[in-house]
């Protein structure tokens, strides 16, 4: 008889072991002490201090809602979300970008917020209109904007001084950028004038727009990489590498350009305001508006907070999202200098948070900015851009060939 009991125990324990993980979920959701726990998913580690402070403020108001943060690096963020969404296990509240919002909204894995906003008299007029548009799909708003970013021309004052070149300003254009890059490049010291990054936002998108080209046509059915304006812009990008003014594509994958830049190996590069927390520690660095091409243009993009449709705590999640979009939260972001808060009127506080950098450059950029294209297949097209353009950046194939191949792949994705 005794043997029998031991056997049974073995089996039962085995089964309990298997289901152990789901036990925890139930406990946290039920709330033994009346507390509800919601999860908040995002990707940028640099923003953790600001987010922690916001959660602390949130808990002063709502002590019964606990927020658990889940950080996933951007490289894996959307892959993890896709899997989690398929299994109905998204975080309750999460970051969304313009490239994926249409797909997620149409896939019905995130909640439309218009109704709840109306009920609570939550005003969407506090945010730049372009950002509200970006997160409006089929007439419904899906995300409350949290920040926005444009591109700036970061530069190293020390390298400029040593080469006797004057600092970049709003008079700069493509020609001047090239000329300065030539003067600043110093092969012996291992200094490159400019980093021709293979990135879309703050890279070839900005140049294509400045040259009068487009990425995705107005009707959302075709890509514009093979248009003459785009080919010329891509060629201008790669010419820095060809002429030895920029590290090669291989060198920039070995060591990230931002690392080369902050260690004084690169004189100028395009990058966003999200680098402020990192670059502000280095007194040699400053930022200016990006040079103009045929016209002035930079990409603008902003993130928003969305609610997953599988959340068990819709009310609590909405309260948290409202708080994340509030002036109070924007001021925390502004103060810590992390990103440009989207809440209108808090940008000045952001600018003043780091007085040694000319952060006005990013705010100025918003005036002539172009939003990142957003269609259902944006994520897939981004992948093709990386796959194909890296061959042009490493001079394996010509710009024309790359543009043709990329346009073909992108058009295929768009027609699906």
């Amino acid at each position, binding site marked *: 008889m005794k043997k029998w009991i031991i*056997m049974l125990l073995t089996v039962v324990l085995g089964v309990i072991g*298997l289901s152990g993980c789901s036990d925890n979920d139930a406990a946290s959701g039920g709330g033994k002490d009346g507390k509800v726990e919601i999860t908040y998913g995002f990707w940028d580690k640099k923003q953790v201090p600001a987010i922690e402070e916001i959660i602390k403020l949130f808990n002063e108001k709502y002590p019964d809602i606990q927020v658990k943060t889940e950080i996933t690096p951007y490289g894996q963020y959307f*892959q993890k979300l*896709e899997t989690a969404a398929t299994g109905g296990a998204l975080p309750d509240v999460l970051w969304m970008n313009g490239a994926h919002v249409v*797909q997620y909204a149409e896939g019905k894995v995130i909640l439309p917020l218009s109704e709840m906003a109306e009920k609570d008299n939550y005003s969407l007029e506090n945010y730049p209109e372009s950002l509200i548009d970006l997160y409006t799909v089929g007439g419904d708003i899906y995300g409350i904007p949290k920040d926005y970013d444009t591109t700036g021309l970061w530069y190293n004052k020390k390298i400029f001084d040593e080469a006797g070149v004057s600092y970049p300003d709003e008079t700069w254009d493509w020609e001047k950028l090239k000329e300065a890059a030539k003067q600043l490049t110093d092969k012996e010291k291992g200094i490159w004038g400019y980093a021709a990054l*293979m990135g879309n936002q703050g890279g070839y998108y900005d140049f294509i727009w400045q040259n009068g080209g487009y990425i995705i046509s107005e009707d959302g059915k075709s890509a514009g990489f093979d248009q003459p304006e785009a080919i010329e812009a891509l060629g201008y990008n790669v010419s820095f590498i060809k002429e030895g003014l920029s590290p090669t*594509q*291989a060198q920039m994958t070995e060591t990230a350009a931002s690392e080369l830049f902050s260690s004084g190996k690169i004189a100028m590069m395009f990058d966003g305001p999200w680098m402020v927390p990192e670059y502000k520690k280095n007194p040699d660095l400053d930022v200016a508006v990006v040079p103009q091409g045929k016209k002035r243009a930079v990409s603008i993009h902003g993130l928003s907070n969305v609610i997953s449709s599988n959340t068990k705590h819709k009310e609590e999640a909405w309260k948290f999202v409202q708080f994340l979009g509030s002036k109070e939260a924007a001021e925390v972001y502004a103060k810590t200098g992390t990103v440009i808060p989207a809440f209108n009127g808090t940008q000045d506080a952001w600018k003043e948070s780091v007085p040694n950098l000319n952060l006005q450059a990013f705010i100025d950029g918003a005036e002539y900015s172009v939003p990142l294209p957003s269609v259902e297949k944006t994520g897939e097209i981004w992948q093709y851009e990386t796959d194909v353009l890296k061959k042009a950046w490493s001079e*394996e194939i010509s710009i024309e060939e790359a543009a043709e191949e990329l346009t073909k792949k992108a058009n295929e994705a768009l027609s699906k």
Partner: protein
Amino acid sequence: MKVSNLAKTRKRSDYFWAYLMIAPTMLGLFIFYLWPIAQNFYFSFTEWGAFGQYEWTGLDNYKRLLEDAALLQAFKNTSIYIIFTVPIGIFLSIVVAVLLNQNIKGKSIYRTLYFLPVITMPAAIAMVWKWLYNADYGMFNYLLSLVGIEGPQWVSDPKIALYSIIAVAIWSGIGYNMVIFLSGLQGIPKMYYEAAEIDGAGPVTVFFKITLPLLSPVIFFVSIMSLIGAFQVFDLIFMMIGKSSTALESTQSIVYLFYQHAFVLNDKGYAAAIAVLLLAVILIITAIQMVLQKKWVHYD
């Protein structure tokens, strides 16, 4: 009559207990291995949209497999990886195991050192080696620069990136195989060596005539396991080769391609077909090894 009945009930209850004992493991095996395999097979006949919607497309994915140049390249990369890592890895671990089976000073320290990479996470290994390999700041190129050689871009140059990964794979695999070989070596009776000594055989003859044949069942086991492992290489490539690296095409393995389709391009049906193909290839090669073993593996 009565006796045989008793034996029968006795036997039946034995079976019952036996099955009950292995039930937890069987359950786990079914839930975590067999069921996913069956599902994967089913999904290989489907095409996926966003968020888990899929439709039946029959053999479409398999037709695509035949025309996919990237898949061919991935098979080529994986083959090169296998051809280098498996034989060299086995050879080096036998050498190390034989050396560490002698009576040398600090034997256990050496054994620990060789085994350390096995208990380290592959991601951590990849990160450390990535920095050793770094063209600008890495140790290898620094050492080369001391003797006036400008080192290559170990993990970004498409021509050598795969071999850089192979070197790490061999290095991190030696310890694991070494432990298995060590236990195999210790299972060889001492009297054979004593007899060989009396007959006047040198160490090389002893190694080839006694050690190697008696170790052959262990070599066989290790070669099957490392071959299967090598076919599934993913983590080192994923960690060491950047997504926008020009060396990606010349290093990506079959599993990397699977990952790319399944989780980056969200083309899960096609990814499932790649997995089925990989399973078939591994099965065939393992079967060939099973047949060939009769020629060289000595079980007594």
